[in-house]
């Protein structure tokens, strides 16, 4: 039997330290929806999503009420539209994005991911159509999220796509400039993308996934921070052990919710994503965990080591607590969604370059980075190339979600609202990479031994 102390500890984690289930994400295959007529295809995907996910939101709310654990988001990921829509005779997939948006609204989920293409080795016709459709799709829809995988350890980096994505991000920013380039907050560029990630904006339902599946993403930076307060001044063995124990407890709750959701909805459980996902709320910050380890401000020397320990200990603790782990599984460092990161940028301790170093040791990458509106497409492409290279060489997922905010410069602030938070504009190197990006072609896949 558990004790009164156990009950109070769990409820303190939930109420004071903001332990929550960040998302229940239903992955739905759209591979059987293809049709040469785009209208019929759109009807097919709308019908399939609304039929399959009809009870998703209500089930999430029931579990939340019965177990007393907040479930913040209910979401859907679908087969990459570049694959599902490829047989349509059309030169734009914007209508498919509208159908996804309408389906998301109908079933009541706040985001739907999968307006995506996988082009690490090269483009198919569907991939080209999808990528060209991204700026308009993210402008006119509200809940659709888009992602493009342009590199992997086994395929190398598609530098033609790196160049194109710089331009696509600029176009998306321009089209949504009346909303501070909000469209770019719904667009992620990946290397080594996981096909079962439940977190937005990068979620999609990979081609090796079953017909329908239930993934759960847990969270709880505040719980880890609180636990570390009890080992102040102790050595790093104690720090790692504390994080592992905490991650275990958090993940057990995720596993319970995932099994319960899977049982009630009648679809198989996929994976638990063991991530520490911050929110802008006070007490829900990854940066504050790093500072609790003894850093004056996130970004100070030692930050990369602190993050490496945190990321590894979260995995070690979480792995034993869950039957299947997948997705991104690691600490997230999205700048605008983390109060501690925002403060670190504002006080000058954290820069784009330090963030890049941090992405070498954690999931996922340069996430929710607001940069000046006059940052060139080539510079954005070059930042993407650097991140993709880190992912490719280190055999890990890396991503870039960067927002060049039209009309804003360093010193300004941009407000995205809700879970997306707000951010000061980060400084970007003024030195040009235009000729580097203009080359195009492919960076070959790396050698996997001689790893110095």
């Amino acid at each position, binding site marked *: 039997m*558990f004790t009164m102390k156990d009950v109070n500890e*769990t*409820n303190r984690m939930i109420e004071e330290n903001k332990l929550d289930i960040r998302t229940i994400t239903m992955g739905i295959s759209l591979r059987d929806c293809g049709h040469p007529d785009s209208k019929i295809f759109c009807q097919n995907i709308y019908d399939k999503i609304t039929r399959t996910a009809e009870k998703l939101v209500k089930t999430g709310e*029931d579990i939340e*009420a019965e*177990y007393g654990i907040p479930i913040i988001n209910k979401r859907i990921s679908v087969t990459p539209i570049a694959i599902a829509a490829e047989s349509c005779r059309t030169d734009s997939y914007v209508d498919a994005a509208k159908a996804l948006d309408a389906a998301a609204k109908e079933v009541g989920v706040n985001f739907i991911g999968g307006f995506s293409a996988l082009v690490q080795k090269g483009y198919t016709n569907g991939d080209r159509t999808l990528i060209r459709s991204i700026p308009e799709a993210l402008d006119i829809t509200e809940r659709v999220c888009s992602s493009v995988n342009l590199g992997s350890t086994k395929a190398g980096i598609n530098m033609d796509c790196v160049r194109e994505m710089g331009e696509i991000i600029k176009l998306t920013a321009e089209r949504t400039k009346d909303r501070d380039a909000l469209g770019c907050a719904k667009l992620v560029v990946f290397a080594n993308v996981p096909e079962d990630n439940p977190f937005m904006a990068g979620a999609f339902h990979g081609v090796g996934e079953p017909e329908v599946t239930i993934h759960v993403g847990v969270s709880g930076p505040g719980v880890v921070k609180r636990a570390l307060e009890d080992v102040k001044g102790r050595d790093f063995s104690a720090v790692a052990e504390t994080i592992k124990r905490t991650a275990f407890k958090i993940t057990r*709750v995720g596993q319970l919710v995932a099994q319960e959701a899977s049982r009630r909805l009648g679809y198989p459980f996929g994976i638990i994503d063991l991530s520490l996902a911050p929110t802008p709320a006070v007490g829900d910050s990854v940066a504050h965990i790093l500072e609790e380890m003894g850093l004056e401000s996130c970004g100070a020397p030692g930050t990369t080591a602190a993050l490496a320990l945190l990321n590894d200990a979260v995995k070690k603790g979480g792995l034993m607590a869950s039957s299947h782990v997948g997705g991104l599984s690691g600490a997230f460092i999205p700048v605008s969604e983390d109060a501690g990161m925002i403060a670190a940028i504002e006080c000058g301790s954290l820069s784009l370059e330090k963030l890049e170093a941090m992405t070498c040791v954690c999931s996922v990458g340069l996430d929710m980075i607001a940069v000046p509106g006059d940052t060139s497409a080539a510079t954005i492409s070059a930042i993407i190339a650097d991140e993709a290279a880190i992912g490719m060489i280190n055999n890990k997922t890396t991503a870039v979600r960067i927002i060049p905010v039209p009309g804003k410069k360093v010193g300004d602030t941009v407000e995205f609202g809700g879970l997306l938070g707000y951010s000061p504009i980060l400084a970007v190197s003024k030195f040009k990479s235009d000729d580097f990006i203009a080359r195009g072609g492919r960076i070959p896949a790396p050698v996997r031994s001689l790893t110095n």
Partner: protein
Amino acid sequence: MKTVITIVGQDRVGIIAMVSNILAENNVNILNINQNILEGFFNMVMLVDMSQAIISLKDLGQLLGDKGAAMGLDIKVQHEDIFRVMHRV
């Protein structure tokens, strides 16, 4: 199905009476009660059996939550599994 009821708030006369009356009316059986008062602060954890209950867990949570709020108490009703999985391997 076993359920955990936690009650936290300023101590006063009639807290246990109010809660146990509602449980009796709804055929919810009390299995265990742990309670203490620290500096005037009331803290109680009850384990109850709802297998014969004539009310759903969700509705009981709503009912006790509302009644508790009227007395200045924070009352939560939760399925026991969330505590079991977190604290027992």
